């Protein structure tokens, strides 16, 4: 019997199990101890572990990040939760100048086992400052790990791995993924960094979907199947380190790559994946395209918001043009944009 949890429940379970196993793990951040419990991902932890291990903070993202680093230097394993990724812009100095660099600039004398959970906002007119997905900023910086699991299974395993890892990890979650349901084993397990997952096999085109876009790629795959196009969907899971070989293996077969990111494109993860693949495959014997946010600030009004985000149709249409450049442009009829989703990923 499969055990079904939501992504949010999977995160909660992983956190709780690690907190039980290791007394040095603690959770902090704005709202982690309130009745909403960060979309349920921290609910009940305060009751179970007390206010020393589960605490709210002042509105001080910069210093609170430094506090996590300092606690990590002292041997603790902090999990710092941000209900919006956008707030990390206040913490860049600590994350980039200190967390990422401490081990190196102190010649290996210390390590910083810090997990930073960054939730990408979406839907209901979040607008300019509550919708950003800034993982590529952190992928640029040596000394940080960046992971963005998509399925509940990977969410739990990756979070546990992140907590146990001795380095700073930016743990990227998409708000809409919290609702996704899937099989999650009860026991503790880890999903290693640097291993991408083939979510669905295919032979004509490789769709690499980052974070919530992996879900959208699965939907695009259905659209494409109706056109006789057989898409393979890959979820990189971890962005730094990046498992380029799994992607390359797929593209060697399909010859075509679409990278769908849940973020802007310029200097984004999509550019990195395409370039890395070209380097890895020793040339460019493949066709590639990328899709992501429109190159503008996120607008709240629905008609613009719908056009700001890429969706299954955009991905499918792009894959179609890549494979059939001479065919008339095709875009499947758009379903209503998702505000909540059920998705049971195969693993």
């Amino acid at each position, binding site marked *: 019997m499969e055990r079904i949890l939501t992504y949010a429940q999977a995160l909660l379970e992983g956190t709780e199990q690690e907190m039980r196993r290791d007394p040095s793990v603690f959770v902090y951040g704005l709202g982690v101890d309130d009745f909403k419990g960060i979309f349920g991902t921290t609910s009940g932890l305060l009751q179970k572990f007390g206010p020393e291990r589960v605490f709210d903070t002042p509105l001080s993202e910069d210093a609170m990040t430094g506090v996590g680093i300092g606690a990590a230097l002292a041997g603790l394993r902090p999990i710092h939760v941000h209900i919006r990724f956008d707030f990390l812009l206040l913490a860049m100095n600590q994350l980039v100048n200190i967390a990422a660099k401490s081990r190196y600039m102190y010649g290996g004398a210390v390590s910083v086992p810090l997990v930073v959970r960054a939730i990408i906002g979406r839907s*209901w*007119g979040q*607008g*300019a400052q509550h919708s950003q997905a800034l993982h590529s900023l952190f992928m640029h910086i040596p000394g940080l790990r960046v992971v963005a699991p998509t399925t509940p299974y990977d969410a739990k395993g990756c979070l546990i791995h992140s907590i146990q890892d001795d380095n700073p990890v930016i743990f990227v979650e998409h708000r809409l993924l919290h609702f996704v349901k899937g099989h999650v084993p009860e026991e503790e397990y880890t999903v290693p960094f640097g291993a991408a997952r083939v979510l669905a096999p295919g032979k004509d085109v490789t769709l690499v979907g980052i974070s919530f876009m992996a879900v959208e790629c699965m939907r695009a795959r259905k659209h494409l199947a109706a056109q006789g196009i057989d898409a393979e969907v890959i979820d990189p899971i971890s962005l730094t380190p990046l498992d380029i070989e799994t992607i390359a293996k797929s593209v060697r077969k399909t010859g075509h790559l679409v990278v769908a990111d849940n973020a802007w494109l310029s200097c984004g993860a999509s550019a990195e994946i395409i370039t890395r693949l070209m380097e890895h495959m020793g040339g460019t014997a493949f066709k590639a395209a990328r899709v992501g946010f429109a190159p503008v600030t996120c607008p*709240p009004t629905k008609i613009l918001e719908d056009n700001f985000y890429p969706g299954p149709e955009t991905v499918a249409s792009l894959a179609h043009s890549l494979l059939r450049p001479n065919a008339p442009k095709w875009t499947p009829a758009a379903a209503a944009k998702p505000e909540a989703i059920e998705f049971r990923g195969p693993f």
Partner: protein
Amino acid sequence: MLSEQFYETLFLIRRVEEEAARIYPTDKIRSPMHLSIGQESVSVGVCAALRAEDVVFGTYRCHALYLAKGGDLKKMVAELYGKYSGCAKGKGGSMHLIDPAAGVLGSSAIVGTTIPQAVGYALALKYQRKPAIVACFFGDGAVEEGAFHESLNFAVLKKLPILFVCENNFYAIHSHILTRQPTANVIDRAKAYGIPVAQHDGNDIAGLHTATKSAADAIRNGGGPQFFECLTYRWREHVGIAEDYHTGYRTREEAQPWHDNDPVAKLAAQLDAQQRQAIEARVEERIRESFAYAEAEPFPEVSALYEDVLKES
């Protein structure tokens, strides 16, 4: 005379928000909405003492401030509806109201971020030898952000024409101020920068108005920044339209004195019935018009998605 003015603005704000809350469940207003209900008098009391050319900066909880400073009502409601004739063409939403003509210079969803902009605007006013001043509104949570301290330090150092207005409603989302700050002495921390500070009952609109008048005069005359802490209370949930006493982070008992001290009700009681009815009828008509306008106006074209990223010279 003054109390009629106060009442008209207060009542307008209260009723606009109630109306927005009534509409909200229909999903016509699709963006996170932070109501000022219960706290309106801070904005009204302060702004009534400002001049048209004076400028305000606020937070995502900005409906009251926008209207108190004279922001265009139709454009505001259209903005809530995401319409192209909204004050931000549907690209701001409830959290980012603006009306430069009325001196409403913006409001940000990132706590504390407009404080330094307000200081920069004040720097510019001084630089340009303009007689205007800036009033900078923020919550009790914002004083925990480093930017607040950096801004205060610089504004005092440069003796800028700015009034800092901390709306202390005792909560940041569900966290009480005493779980976030060692002592509830915001004004002492501001005072340590060497400027005049005062704590006010934020619901005492007349008192706030008088205090602002004299502070604004002093600031306008080159006296440098001043700091107000205005105690008040939010009646509804942090974001959204419901009451939230059942959720456990605060009690109705705590709220009761603030409800009893409702400036709208208190002012209403001071006016004679006819006056009051005339005001209320006028306000209701404006509101009816504005919501009808917002309903009728078109959404942006898709092509608007790509506009306003950069200003072309």
